[in-house]
């Protein structure tokens, strides 16, 4: 994509986010729902398929281009990005990374337009940080499969049309896992009521249970060759997803810095703007510095991803740093706002709650530390 086209896309998304979504943020949080008009506008714009290749009806952004787009999306409630995050990200990428071309042709064009909403079902009640121990099982049944088990905190499950389900088809450990595309209306598949969360109102997650769910042979991602390849597919999806989430954190940090600076200028104490007090200036400076560092780390990881030079360490570094960074920036934003920052109705109070999730999902900070350290230390890390 040439620079002028990307600029035009970024400008369009920026206008949409700031003019249409930002004014609705408080309502989205309060009512735990993104209005249908916003979902439809996002669909028409093409936001459900920006990371899906043009050959399948998407925009085919590179990781670097995607990060710049996600910086814009991050400026408002993360519930917006969550609408189409799984289509572009972890769920759509299951097909890109692991599916046969026939499977991609069948599903990706509809995922790219948003006609189909796809969810990524990996996490289980007893397999979160280390999903290689997952226990949802798929056993052969004629030429198809029968799936039994339970998944937890599955983003977009309440609205999904298809779920990318990781299930054990072989022995214990990572090598025994395969991925399946399971229609949400398959008999025996049940989506629980959506979770009540601390923040990110409007972004829906739910438990999903599988009680003897029958699927045909076409549901196995990668066809016959896909048996036992689910784990490596999932890990490649997560590498992309981690940079994406890191970019989202940077976008939110940008908003928090804007909120912080605006308040420091406007709020007066002792006859002066609070921005005249040096300790407030210190907090503003720390947040601006954090934001710059976060943006640089994410763009560097994206460049390495696009080059193919690092898809292991840099995604974890970016996700680890950016999620911790936005946590610090949100904390300072509340601090600069003082008592008002603790009140419902203030944007920084909402973002403070929203930001907390970033250090947990798509791999906790501690898991990122392990990935980073084990990759650089090598065999010695395993004793």
């Amino acid at each position, binding site marked *: *994509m*040439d620079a*002028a*086209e990307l600029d*035009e*896309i970024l*400008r*369009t998304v920026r*206008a*949409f986010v700031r003019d249409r979504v930002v004014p609705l943020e408080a309502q989205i949080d309060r009512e735990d729902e993104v209005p249908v008009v916003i979902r439809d*506008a996002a669909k*028409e*714009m*093409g*936001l459900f398929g*920006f990371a899906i290749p043009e050959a399948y009806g998407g*925009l085919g952004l590179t990781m670097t281009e995607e990060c710049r787009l996600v910086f814009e999306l991050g400026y408002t409630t993360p519930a917006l990005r969550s609408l189409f995050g799984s289509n572009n990200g972890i769920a759509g990428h299951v097909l890109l990374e692991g599916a046969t071309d026939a499977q991609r042709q069948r599903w990706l064009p509809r995922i790219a337009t948003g006609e189909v909403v796809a969810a990524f079902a990996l996490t289980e009640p007893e397999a979160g940080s280390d999903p290689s121990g997952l226990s949802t099982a798929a056993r052969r049944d004629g030429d198809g499969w029968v799936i039994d088990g339970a998944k937890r905190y599955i983003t977009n499950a309440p609205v999904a049309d298809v779920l990318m389900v990781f299930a054990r088809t072989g022995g214990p450990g990572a090598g025994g896992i395969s991925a399946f595309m399971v229609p949400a209306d398959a008999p025996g598949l049940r989506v629980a009521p959506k979770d009540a969360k601390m923040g990110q109102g409007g972004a829906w997650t739910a438990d999903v249970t599988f009680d003897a769910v029958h699927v045909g042979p076409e549901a196995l991602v990668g066809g016959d060759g896909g048996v036992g390849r689910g784990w490596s597919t999932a890990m490649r999806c997560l590498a992309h997803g981690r940079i994406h989430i890191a970019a989202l954190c940077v976008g939110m940090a940008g908003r928090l810095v804007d909120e912080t600076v605006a308040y420091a200028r406007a709020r007066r104490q002792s006859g002066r703007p609070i921005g005249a007090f040096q300790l407030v200036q210190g907090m503003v400076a720390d947040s601006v510095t954090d934001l710059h560092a976060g943006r640089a780390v994410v763009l560097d990881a994206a460049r390495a991803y696009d080059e193919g030079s690092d898809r292991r360490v840099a995604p974890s570094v970016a996700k680890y740093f950016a999620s911790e960074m936005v946590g610090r920036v949100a904390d300072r934003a509340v601090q600069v706002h003082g008592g008002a920052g603790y009140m419902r109705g203030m944007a920084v109070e909402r973002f403070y709650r929203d930001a907390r999730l970033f250090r947990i999902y798509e791999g906790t900070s501690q898991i990122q530390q392990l990935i980073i350290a084990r990759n650089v230390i090598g065999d010695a890390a395993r004793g």
Partner: protein
Amino acid sequence: MHVVVCVKQIPDPAAPAALKPDTRTLDRSGKLILDDSDSYGVEMALQLAGNVEGSEVILVSMAPGGETSGLRTALAMGASKAILVSDDALAGSDALSTAKVLAAAIRRAEPDLVIAATESTDGYTGTVPVQIAELLDMPSVTFAKRVTTDGSTVTVERQTEAGYDDVESPMPVVVTVTAGVVEPRYPSFKGIMAAKTKPVDVLSLADLGLDPAQVGGAGARQEMVDVADAESRGAGEIVVDDGDGAQRIVAFLEQLKVI
């Protein structure tokens, strides 16, 4: 039906603006974007064209340096092609010389309907559209807040201070629309990608058969003689509520004729 939309490309209002020291006119040498006021006209044109089979929306613009960034935005929204007049001799144009150039370009598009914003965001003269109508010998209807057409007649609700007038006009006609009358669509990503392959006809004054002495700075009858800082606002009146605060607010609003 050919619907022509006059589209101005202006310096981004979000960026600091500068005046050229010699002519005291706006410096347009940087990147230009679609004037937000014109996005309403483009949207209106797309809606009207969508209702009459076989219609197309054609953009007409005048800008220095062959600038097409703003046009691409309107093409991405759905317009089918554009005519851009760009010529060094157009520097220093006033409203009338702009109207002469745009009228010549519009004529080439064989319009049934010409839509323009009431006024631009950077110049605010608000006179170009009616001058175009005069030059093209077309009727003009200004301040439209609602427009419908059957392809041969336009029916317009024309905003007035008291409400609106119902106006009907034969076509071709020039209609100016006020901001906020329709919700401009956001260009889709596919629309943005498609816009780069849509035709933009870049014309010089010679292509239009216009004499450089009659337009641009040479033909301008208007000269910017001085620019002064606006007076800073004085402090507002502070009213102490002695129990009659509400009545005094009402009286103040009545004085402003807002209630």
